[in-house]
Each structure stands twice: as structure tokens, then as C-alpha cells.
């Protein structure tokens, strides 16, 4: 696997890590707790979940751009060899 395709694989790992984080925060937000502090905590957890959803979207975008770059690099190298 070339270095750029290894970078794509790294982003796949990153995507899985972000998904893990999302699952952990989702689980942590469902704590049995009432009162004012609990509401504040749920607000923070909700904000983090929103951010994580955005981050996962961003990772997907970066991965798409990276795949395009990898294809372009491969094509350029193939052309250079010919």
C-alpha cells in the first residue's frame, strides 16, 4: 500500500475512533440524574454530541478529499513511469 493510501486507512481508523467517542458520550448522557446540575450536564452532553456529529461529517469530507488526492498521486506517478 502506498503512503497516501495508508493515509486513507488512517482516516478510516480516525472515523472509527470518532464513532466510538460518539457511542461513549451517548451512553454517558443517559445517566439517571435529576436536578439543575443534571440539566446543565445534559446541555453539555447535547452540545458535545452535536459537535461529534459535525466532526464525523468533517472526517468523511477529509477522507473524500484524501481519496481524490491519492488517486491523483497514483495517476501522476503512473504517467511519470510511462
Amino acid at each position: 500500500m502506498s503512503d497516501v493510501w495508508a493515509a486513507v486507512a488512517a482516516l478510516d481508523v480516525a472515523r472509527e475512533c470518532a464513532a466510538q467517542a460518539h457511542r461513549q458520550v451517548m451512553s454517558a448522557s443517559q445517566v439517571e440524574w435529576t436536578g439543575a446540575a443534571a440539566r446543565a450536564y445534559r446541555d453539555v452532553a447535547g452540545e458535545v454530541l452535536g459537535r461529534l456529529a459535525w466532526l464525523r461529517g468533517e472526517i468523511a469530507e477529509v477522507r473524500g478529499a484524501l481519496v481524490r488526492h491519492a488517486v491523483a498521486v497514483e495517476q501522476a506517478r503512473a504517467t511519470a513511469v510511462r
Partner: protein
Amino acid sequence: MRDGTAMRSDDAPALVVIGGAGGTTARIEALVAAAQRLVRAADSLDRCGSQVVRAAGAVEATATVCPATASAVRWPAQTLVHGPAGLRATGALLTDAAERLRSVAAGYARADADAAARLRALAVLGGTAVGDAGPLAAAGALLLGTAALLSAGRTVVHLRSLRHTPTPVGLGLTLLGGSSLTRAENPVGMVARLVAGPGLLPDGWLPPAADGGEIAVSGLAAVVTGLAPGLQTGTVADPVGPAARAAYVTGTVGAAALGRPRHRLVVAPQVTVGAEQPPAPRTTADVLRQVQDLYPENGAAPGSVGVQRLDHPDGRRTWVVTVPGTQSAGLHGSNPMDMATNLALASGTPDDVTHLVSEAMLRAGVGPEEPVLIAGHSQGGMAAVRAASGLHGVFTVAGVVTAGSPVGGMSLPAEIPALHLEHLQDQVVALDGRPNPDVTHRTTVVRDLGAGSAADRAAARSLGAPHLMPAYIRTAEALEGSGHRSLEEFDAAMGRVLGDGSADATHQRYVGVRVSAASDCPSARSARS
């Protein structure tokens, strides 16, 4: 688990705590578990960021080949990692939230402990006042209290049985038992849960040992202490020890008055031919299995303790001493593991099981520098703590494990780490009338069996099973790999005794038997000489 912070196993929701202002309810261990999950989420984001940085590095290395596509990756990757809502900032937010959550959980734990301490002080004050009023008043108060409890229980059962009757009361109870009302955290919700739920008894009708049991024991012990001559009200802080001492002295004097001769303890190694040697233990659960094997119903002689020598490949020699719990409900019978020993242990007077443990260690040849782990169940755990304290300086006690033992009132030198396993539904651990000390060298794990496996849940519904060895062995197994710092430190200390399981293990049982002080037999004489 308590080691300055309240904490439980991540996957075993346990203690229900009600505390704080404004009707706040929380499960402390659920908050701590949530904090752990947030930390893990932050770790995941950190790994995520590292992977993105790695990918960005690979892009930079090939940027000269295709600058346009590399540029399309570079800036989004930069924002993804370092942007204001990026991976690093969100990870920091998660770490901060986890820290705050832990702090809140610790606050709730402190509030809960304070409330329990106040209630206990009130129970002690009321109990000693009743005792001070004299034996007749105490007996009357106890009778009245018992009658009131029975009457209240009968009323609850009666009301719950009316729920499905076609009467106005039945209709009212059906409405009251609606799910929204029974979940309400207010007096109406409490009444609804008490009288209008399914079944004849409310859920969780037994008080948790950590709260109700300890307070009730303190109150009852205070009544006994208050019966002593002179005004006791306001002078007694911990009535359990004096009450146990009074009961022990009364039992001993009563036995002597009835003609029972004074006794002494004879300790002898148990000779077994062809018996299978237990393997070298590696975990707390392994050690507790050895304790379980020492009960007579599992084939051991009554009054047996185990001493296992571990010869490690590196030349070190360590020891594991195992002590089972109460085996006889009598006082001063031939088996030392009886109620007299319980009272002696609770009152701080010399007891036969601690004597048996120390005698067994001496006879087994435990060296003063050879690390020893002492583990016990119920009474055996109390004896383990007392033996560890008493033998400190004589032997190198490297750790103590207790399961279902009321050891809150017993001290242990700070050099000896201890692990105390308790179950929320085990009423025996409440007999010390106080929580275990919250000190760094003693880690207490309180597990709610109602939130465990099917076997645990079945045990939780029983009065006796939460105290038995199988449940405690399951609890010890559940703690393995929990990742909590207190448990890891204790496991490290225990590991210095147990090693990696490759030690050559030699097990010997010693039996203690009480005999009349007047009698003597040649074997005992020769053993002593």
C-alpha cells in the same frame, strides 16, 4: 468502592443515593461511570486526531506531486484537528466535563455520608435515652417499635392486596400506581411506590445495609449500652463495641453459671491422605474459592483454616491464609467459629479464631520476612483484620481480603492494604453499625446484586444468599480488569504475594477445637512442648 472518592465498577450500577437540595436524585456510581465514559471518549478523540495528523503528514509528503488536491485536504484537516470545534477542543471539553462530573459525584457521596452519620448519631442518642430509662422502658419501647413495624407492614400488604378489587379503594390505588406517579420524586411518588405497585411487597422493601441496617444496629446497640449504670445519653459515640462486650460477658458468665467449664483452644494440623492440593491462586476470586472450600458443607473439618505456602520460581516464599466464617450459632461449643467469637471480635476482646490463625501461621513456619495475604469471609474477615493488626511486626502481612465482614469498627495499620467486599443486600456487613473507614489503604467495594447477572439478581431477592460465598466469588470475578486505581493498587500488592500463578503451592489445613481447660491429652501436651 470508596478510597476518598466514591466509585464503583463501570458495568455494575449499584448504590442508590438520594442527596443534595431540591429533590435531586442520582446514582453516584452511574455518574462516575458516565465520567469514565467521557474520559474514554476523549481518549478516542485523541487517537482520532493522531490519525488525522498522520494522514495530513502523508499528504504533505506527496504535495509536490499534486499540489491542488493536497491543498484540498490540508485546510479541512487542519480545521478538523485544531479548529475551535475540532477534535482537540472537543476532547478538552470532554475531559473537563468528566472532571466536573467526578467532582459532583464526590459531593453527593459526601452529602450521603453526612446524612447517614447524622441519622446514626440521632439513633444512638435516642437508643441510649431509652436504655437510660431502664430495662422496663427499653423492653416496652422495643415491643412498641416492633408492633408498630408489624402493623405498618400489615397495612401496606393489606392495601396492596386491594389494588385489583372493584372498590373505590382499588380504583384509587390503580390510579395511584400509574407509572408517572410511581416515578415521581416527591411524597406522592413515595406513597405510590409503597402502596400501589404490583405484588404484595414494595420493590426494595429491605433497607440497604449501608444505610438503614447500620443505623438500626447502632440504635439497638445504644439501647443496650444505655442500660449500663449511670447516665449514658450523650456520652456514647459508638455503642456497637460496648453492646457486643456486654453480650459477650453476659454469655460467658451465664455459661459459667450453668456449669459449663472454662475452655482453651487446641490447634492441630489436619492430616489428609491423597487430598488434592489447591493450585496457586492468581486472583481475589481464586483466594475466595479457597475460603469457600473450608466450610464443613464443602468437606472441611469444622473450625478449619487454610495456610498455603507459595514457592516462587525466583526463590521467594509467600503465604496465603484463608479463614471461613461462622459455622455454629452456639456460644462456647467445641467449634471456635461460633457466636461467642463474633461477639468477642465485635467487642475487641481476645477471640479463638484470631488465636487459631496466628497459631496456624506459627506452626506452618511462616517466616517474619515472608509476605502473607490473609483472606476471610464474614467472621473470618473480622479475624483476618484482627490477626493482621495483631501480627503486624511479627509477620509481614502484605494484604487482607474480607468478604461480607462487618469490619467498619476495626482498625488496620496503614502499611497493610485491604480489600473489603460487601453487597448492598447483605445485612451482615451492617452489624458494625458504621461504614468502613474511608482511608487510602482500605478499599471497600459495595456491589448491588440487583444490578448483576441472573444469579446475582436471584440472590438479591433472598435474605441469606447475598451473604454467601458464591455471590462474593462472583463479585470478585466482576472486579477483575475493572481498571479502577484503588483496585489496581490492591491487585499490585496482592500480586507481590500471589505472583503469576507459577508458584509451587503447598496447602495445609489447621483445625481449632475448644476443649475443657481442665482436660489435657498427650498429643496436645507434646504439641505444646
